[in-house]
């Protein structure tokens, strides 16, 4: 396998005469924490859907986990993990049932499932809650569990779409501890967020404006480039010029 988790060149998606994603190019290294930022409507979700094998590009090239986004969508889906604030776990299943369900979908054997299940519940300190419905858990716990479930099959890449929205500041940081741990194990992290302090936790970030990637670098270099002291200022300088505000 190549060292790049994602290679993306001139990737474009058009809906009729509207260009949602306009020739974006970037590479993500294996094990890197890559922040994918942009204003509402900049095209982040559309780009992410193409990279996850859920939508075909109009033009351009992209390889995700070594697979082609046109021809190998099913292989991509098997080799990535995904979680978002909106879609994570089944509220009417217990913690154990959710783990079994997702583990089963990703093709883990019964034996693997059993050991993963125990390991995960112990690591997250959820022994007492294991047989409770997920719906009754605090949001922060749900999100930590959802992340662990999203990487249960040890994917090469995990896509996180605003994983920490609405989460309290302590749990938000604990969530990032999990991200760092996964990254240290070699899992590539592709993450979007509206919290600019979280942009600082990424190795590199790109900022999308009106379908284009207008900036891509380490947080430190971006701040230098825009003569800014915080990522908030960098984001503001770029996104202020945006023409569109569609979602």
């Amino acid at each position, binding site marked *: 396998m190549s060292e790049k988790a994602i290679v993306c060149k001139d990737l474009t998606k058009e809906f009729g005469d509207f260009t949602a994603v306009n020739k974006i190019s970037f590479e993500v290294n294996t094990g890197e924490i890559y922040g994918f930022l*942009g*204003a*509402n*409507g900049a095209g982040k979700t559309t780009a992410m859907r193409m990279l996850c094998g859920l939508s075909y590009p109009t033009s351009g090239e992209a390889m995700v986990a070594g697979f082609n986004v046109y021809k190998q969508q099913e292989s991509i889906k098997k080799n990535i993990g995904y979680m978002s604030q909106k879609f994570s776990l089944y509220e009417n299943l217990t913690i154990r049932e959710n783990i079994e369900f997702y583990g089963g979908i990703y093709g883990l054997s019964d034996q693997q499932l059993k050991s993963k299940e125990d390991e995960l519940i112990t690591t997250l300190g959820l022994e007492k809650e294991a047989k409770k419905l997920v719906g*009754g858990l*605090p*949001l*922060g716990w749900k999100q930590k569990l959802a992340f662990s479930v999203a990487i249960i099959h040890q994917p090469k890449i995990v896509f996180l779409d*605003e994983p920490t*929205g*609405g*989460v*309290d*500041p*302590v*749990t938000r*940081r*604990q969530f*990032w*501890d999990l991200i*760092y741990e996964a990254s240290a194990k070699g899992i590539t992290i592709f993450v979007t967020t*509206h*919290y*600019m*302090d979280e942009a*600082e*936790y990424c190795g590199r970030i790109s900022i999308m404006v009106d379908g284009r990637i207008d900036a891509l670098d380490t*947080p*430190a270099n971006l701040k230098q480039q825009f003569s800014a002291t*915080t*990522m*908030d200022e960098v*984001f*503001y300088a770029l*996104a*202020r010029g*945006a023409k569109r*505000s*569609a*979602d």
Partner: protein
Amino acid sequence: MPAVTLEHITKTYDKGRIQAVTDLSFTVEKGELFGLIGPDGAGKSTVFRILTTLLLADKGTATVEGLDTVKDFKKIRGAVGYMPGKFSLYQDLTVEENLHFFAALFGTTVEKNYGLIKDIYEQIKPFSTRRAGKLSGGMKQKLALCCALIHKPVVLFLDEPTTGVDAVSRKEFWDMLKRLKAEGITILVSTPYMDEADLCERIALIQEGKILSIDTPANIVKAYPEKLYAVRADSIHKLLLDIRLYPDTLSCYSFGEHLHVSFRNGEKNDQNGPEGLRTYLEQKGHNRIEIKPTPATIEDSFIRLMAGNDKGASKNIPA
């Protein structure tokens, strides 16, 4: 007379199994811009729904403009504007139709109070014949605000108006709120974004249905008990792990490009505080170590109060 009062309000769901808010009391003065700051599940929406007379409290009393939320619910409904956290306008009506509908519902016309919404409405006017369901998130938010304002309410309740909204649109939204406040409207707004707390006159930090602190943002950060230091070095994640192992560390967590660190025994003895830490980190092989005092922010205060609120402080504070 305050614009809003809550006295010992308690609300449970699911036959008492879920404690949404517990013995909550606070007041909002007339014309004030008051913020309820807390994560999802803190009980913010429950407070809004009780005050807008959509939900009955189990215990306690609440008033809006001197009117009781139980006995005078009809009068309250006519006097307040409410923007729920979830988009609740009619998706099949156009922008214009929604606005006229809400004006008619409150026995007024769009023309009569247009001055109040003009600045906001003009931004969505080019889409006035588009169905509300087809609007972008930012435009939906502006339309919802217009509909909540069209009967010129005396108190405006905004439940997480900026959640999921990008940093630029959030700034614009708060500018709009400042202009509404200048019109004399009392505003009660909730948000999970700690950085928005500074834009309110007074705030209540709320967690698990209880108030952690209630004051002006400036006083809340002034009350932060320890000296706080911003620390960084080349390898920030290793730095975090190492500082947590340093015996005099009280708390250490990520904060943007820095770590925020406080010490046991405060700053009485620099040898055990920042200077001792520097020596320790040099021994651990860290390069380009930077340790400098930093003022606490609302987010620091919230983290500190969350730890103090919980008996097992070490469980919550990532030290």
